[in-house]
Structure formats: structure tokens, C-alpha cells
């Protein structure tokens, strides 16, 4: 199913189109920008690209353990459900801005949701 999503949404080209729109929204969002405001912005942008590839059902496979390990330092800084929701909101907003059909946005949201507990270390 998720590989279908990646094809339908437009694959790597869609990721490339969405990453700047998405990451600009995140950096402009006072609720979450601090978590993403890295000295190494390029590395951050590359991570966001990997995240979008995964959220679009593409060929990046992080295990639950990867997700927990990768976000543990943010959880220690207070990352919680409200921040997770805000990131998803930024992603939905970016995809709406890019005129992605609503049912595909729904599928992307569902992929994100499967990572919530691991990201938040629950």
C-alpha cells in the first residue's frame, strides 16, 4: 500500500518539491522551530527529506528503534504530542499548498501517525 502512495504522490520529485515548503513552515512555527533550529541547517534539511520520503511511503525504512534513538535527545528537551501534532500540521499545510489531493494527504498523515509512539519514546 505505502509504495502505491509513493508512486501516486509523485516519488522523489514530490519529495524535492515538498521539502522546502515543509521545512520553511516548521522553521516559521514558534511552537516547534526551536527543535529544528540546528547550527547545521543543511543536515537538518536532509533529515527532513528523509522524513518526507518515509511519510510518503518511499524507500527509507527507519525501524521503531531508530526513531526512538534519533529523537531521545528531543524528548529529553520536552518533545511531546503537541509538537508532534504541530509537525504533522506543517506537513499537511505544505501538501495542501502544493495541491496534493486530500485522500493522499490523509494517507501521509496515517503513515506519520504510525511513528508517534516511537518518536515520543512512549
Amino acid at each position: 500500500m505505502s509504495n502505491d502512495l509513493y508512486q501516486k504522490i509523485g516519488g522523489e520529485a514530490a519529495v524535492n518539491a515538498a521539502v522546502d515548503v515543509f521545512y520553511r513552515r516548521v522553521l516559521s512555527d514558534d511552537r516547534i522551530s526551536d527543535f529544528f533550529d540546528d547550527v547545521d541547517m543543511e543536515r537538518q534539511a536532509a533529515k527532513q527529506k528523509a522524513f518526507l520520503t518515509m511519510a510518503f511511503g518511499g524507500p527509507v525504512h527507519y525501524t521503531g528503534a531508530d526513531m526512538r534513538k534519533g529523537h531521545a535527545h528531543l524528548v529529553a528537551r520536552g518533545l511531546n504530542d503537541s509538537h508532534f501534532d504541530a509537525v504533522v500540521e506543517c506537513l499537511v499545510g505544505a501538501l495542501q499548498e502544493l495541491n496534493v489531493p486530500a485522500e493522499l494527504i490523509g494517507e501521509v498523515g496515517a503513515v506519520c501517525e504510525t511513528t508517534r509512539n516511537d518518536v515520543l519514546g512512549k
Partner: protein
Amino acid sequence: MTQLHFNEAVYQCEPGESVLDALTRQGVSIPSSCRNGVCQTCMMQSADANVPSAAQNGLKSTLQAQNYFLACVCRPTTDMDISLPDSSDRLLPATVTALRQLNDEVVCVGLDCPSLPDYRAGQFINVYRDTGFSRSYSLASVPSDPYLRLHVRRLPAGRMSNWVHDELKIGDSLHISAPVGACFYLPGAAQQPLLLIGTGSGLAPLMGILRDALNQQHAGAIHLYHGSRDAAGLYLVDELREMAAQHPHFHYTPCVSGGSASSIHQPGRAVDVALAAHPDLTGWRVYLCGNPDMVKSARKKAYLAKAAMNDIHADAFVRVAAANQ
């Protein structure tokens, strides 16, 4: 089967196997994360240009030009000589050939280095006072200049900068590293507008990049904003005005953050003055050099003003500089 030369050893790479998998299989640990050519954690550098193009997908053009690649998606078709980024720190002997005071705080140091490898204007070197003590300085020269030029600003408690200002003499010998860094001009988009923002001695690499762009017939507009807290911190003002007079597409704006407007300069921080004049950076190429906090905030502002991430170039040693403060 191809061979990988890495850290003075040879590793076998099976047909279709990635460099990352081949090294991992043979007990070499390379930092990696997504293993799909996206996150750029496993970036390595090849000594030659024989890098499969798929292994450079998504990398910034300046990194591609220096044969950087992503090990997780690099499936070699020929033998490769590879290293981790910036792992070479071979010391090269150099001689001081010129010292010129640019203002009260900044001295231009000329260095002759016969064994210098090819470099690009805007890259930086490490200068060694002795083998255990070095600082990074950007190059203000272009490769056709007869010697390397650095702009060394005296810092209040700067062990290196005070030594350079107070003790270094013409004819002295010291050691430098080979030039590294990905903040330089590349031809190929000659119409693209360029925005150069620097504070303090961050003007050094921008001088190199500016002269390189002009030498390579860059046709798009070039806007340089040089910022300082006070007017005394500006330098090369007359030279830059003269260059602007000679090249109608080059525009120079000195900025002073701690004072009011004058006929000489604009009031305000260089990044703010620049973005007020150019609020939409779609399609621009941006170079940022100087104070690490300025670079960090300007990078974010330029990105939010719609410059593409891969079109924003900044000093690579910002983190080192921040750690040394």
C-alpha cells in the same frame, strides 16, 4: 569486483554492492543513517572524478565538484580512492611575503606556499603557529594571485590573532593545511543573481568569491553587503567602490549596525539591510561569511526568503570558530 582504497588499506567491493555495505562487511565503521542516499550522513570524498552520478544525487553543486558522494548509494564501476570528509590535514610549509594593515583591527597576511594544491577562492586553510595550535582563516585571494591572502582580525583574547598582529614578520616561516571548504563560486549559472553578506573579516572569502565570479564573467547582478559595528571596522572600502564603478552589475553596500546613516554607509545589520532590499531570494545564490551567530541567523532568513537550501553557501568552519570562542 572493484577495489576501494581507504585509510591506506584496500577493500573489495562486490558487483552491485554499495561502498557503505562493502566497508561495513569488512569491519570498517562509517557513520550512516537512512542507507538510501537521502540523509547525507555517510558522505565521503573520492580522490578522482570517477564517482557514479547516482551517488551524488541531491548533493550541493560545490560538493559534487569536489567529488563528494554518498557511500550508501555508491556502486563503483571502477576502483576508487576514498576518504571521509576533511580527514586530510597534511602540513604545508609557507613563508610570509606581505603584511598590510587594512584597518585598526585587520591585517592582510600574504603567504607563499610552493607546495599548495589547486584551490578555489573562498575556501579556508588552517594556520599553524606550532603543530598543536592552529586557527582557520578564509582565503581572500584567487588562484591566479601570486600569493595567498588572509584577513586576520585582532580578537581581544585571541592567541593566534595577537601573535599575527604583534610578532609575525615578512620572511617568517609557518605551516598551513591544504585549502578546504565548500563555500566558493562555481560557473554554470551565469545569469543567477548573487548575494554576498559578510561581517568583520568575513569579507575575506567574499573578496575571493567576488573576484572569481567577475573573472569568470558572471553576468547576473552581484550584491555585496559588508557589515561592521562601527565605521572603523569597515575596510577595503575604496577598492570595492572602484570595483563597483568598473563593473556596473556589481553593487557594494557597507553597513554599520551601531550608528546612524551617513553618506558612506547604510545603518543596520548587513543581513537586515540586504533582505530589506531583496525580500524575495527565489533563484538567488547566497554566500554568508563572518560571525557564526550572524551566519546562522542569516542562513535561516535567506532560506525563509525562499533561497533554495542548496544555493546558500556559508563558511564551513563556523562550528569550529564557535567552539574556539
